[in-house]
């Protein structure tokens, strides 16, 4: 069974997801969208949006997350599902993902350990919208 990594904890809880075309707000379920999908305003009312990575290195899911957060103001839970690989979590997190469904074959404790390999980054992101040079005195 895949493990859910959320708020720094690993659990067995599994998301209840419906594909975008059959999802309704009334269902009370999370909505699953594909990485190549255009953002449908209707889905923004969901409490949970899950972006499905077909392969771990498909960066479209990262742009989709940034748009959901920064342009469409989505504030609910944003979950990475599908081929989620521990070495991409730090990118995903900075693009606005808040939870990760770690596939069976990956070790969730490793995923937790490599969640934040760097103490800070150069550029703006969803989680830190101010680039580093505007926050700290650079040049020293």
């Amino acid at each position, binding site marked *: 069974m895949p493990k859910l990594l959320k708020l720094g904890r690993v659990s067995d809880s599994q998301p209840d997801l419906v594909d975008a075309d059959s999802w309704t707000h009334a269902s009370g379920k999370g909505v699953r969208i594909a990485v190549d999908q255009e953002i449908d305003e209707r889905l923004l009312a969901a409490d949970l949006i899950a972006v499905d990575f077909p392969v771990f290195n498909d960066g479209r899911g990262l742009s989709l997350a940034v748009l959901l957060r920064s342009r469409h103001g989505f504030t609910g839970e944003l979950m990475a599902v599908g081929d989620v690989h521990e070495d991409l979590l730090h*990118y995903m997190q900075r693009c606005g993902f808040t939870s990760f469904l770690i596939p069976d074959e990956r070790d969730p404790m490793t995923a937790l350990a490599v969640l934040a390999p760097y103490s*800070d980054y150069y*550029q703006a992101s969803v989680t830190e*919208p101010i680039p580093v040079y505007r926050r700290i005195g650079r040049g020293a």
Partner: protein
Amino acid sequence: MYRYDAFDQQFVDERVAHYREQTRRYLEGELTEEQFLHLRLRNGLYLQRLAPMLRVAIPYGTLSSEQLRLLAHIARHYDRGYGHLSTRQNMQFNWPELAEVPDILEELATVQMHAIQTSGNCIRNVTADEYAGVAADESVDARPYCELLRQWSTAHPEFDWLPRKFKIAITGASDDRAAIDVHDIGIHVYRQDGEVKFDIKVGGGLGRTPVIGALIREALPVEHLLTYVEAIMRVYNRYGRRDNKYKARIKILVRAMTAEGFRERVEEEWVHLKGSPSTLTPEEIGRIEAQFLPPAYPVNATASDSLATDRLTDPEFNRWVRQNVAPHKQPGYAIVVLSTKQTGVPPGDVSDAQMEAVADWADRYGFGEIRVSHQQNFVLPDVPQDQLLELWREAKASHLATANRGLLTDIICCPGGDYCSLANAKSIPIAEAIQRQFDDYDYLYDLGEIDLNISGCMNACGHHHVGHIGILGVDKKGAEFYQISIGGHAGNGASLGSIVGPSFSRAEVPNVIDDILTTYLESRIEDESFLHCFRRIGMEPFKERIYAEAA
């Protein structure tokens, strides 16, 4: 040149630790080959035909003497005593041990170097005019903007997992030495009414489908550099093809959308990003620009009196000055190209001893700075004119004074089938055979500037499409053959070469080159260059001679 602050150092140190941990997981079987592949590539490590290859970043081709000495140490300690200057201004080591790479990266970090994003489907080392900051024909030094892009693109949360690799080049000179027309993004930086502005081209590139880039934005103000590039990257990251690696570069997307359609998408995207916190502040631009201010040239520096006499007394020295020394912004100074293209040595290969010698000369004659050109040569950017003779004598003793910059034998050449697992054919022996056949300086000088570029496969690391003469290794039923093209050009008014016809065996290549050169010499009008002559007379006369003999 740019010096790391505490933040840069912290990031690079953490990157080393991060990669060490990834290497450990791979060696302990926690990562599959495919998973580790993407991680090691983002740290410059390929697995090649015979051994791993580590590509170390030389951001925009600028190095300090201290950094070059460390590269010499790495060549000696972790490799077989040499390194290879790549066509994207980086240095490659062909024989490191995979398990030792974290140690190499740790050593690099001690001199503010790394191998971050030198391969993989991400934003690569931003390249620049190798004469940036010192060229007489330059209006703006491109390097501060390369550095701003380097920092912005390093471990970018959204753009490190692109459909395909992504290459940016910038020039601030009137003579484009950075080949901006054949990059994913090519930027011309200039000053307009006192303000720094950018003209931005997209969708150029070589490889399987060579394309000249299209201009999509003119006179972009400096503060918008990062947000505008962000808009381009987002459109590409979302819509670039991922189903076929040969159709995944941005040029294919630009072609599919048309340049105008692509430009509109970028502008729509940019509306949302313009003015965001990623907009550069005057303070940050100033902080970076200040690190590229000219060195403290002596106040009374003037054109040298002794140089003219030195040139008259030694014809060999005179030749070298004519060929390998370029005009400098500062009176009394010169830019020196140290050619690695000595016959018998693979183009771009330099030994540890040569690296140390170049580092010493940079300290002794200049201000401790060295450049690497995409033509795979070293450049000393600040040499006093009256010390050229002394430098030349030393360079000659170190086999770095071949007077062939820009001539036929200054061949751009990928490592090819001798090293690279992608190659269809060897390229180094072709370069050597050509250098052996055409070794008479007077003949080469009479031919004038001819760019001869060799790639061992369609990936075009040797930039064969934009060689005045291009040679491409192809596989013909398991045998190595070579396709030859004429009329490519990488600088201003870039063009792609046209294929002369059926390909040739390795043994035939030097004679085909001879036919091409003879046709040119017989057809040229006065001092017409090879390229101009080809553009005037077209392919037919070349073809006739080449295939008449073959028949």
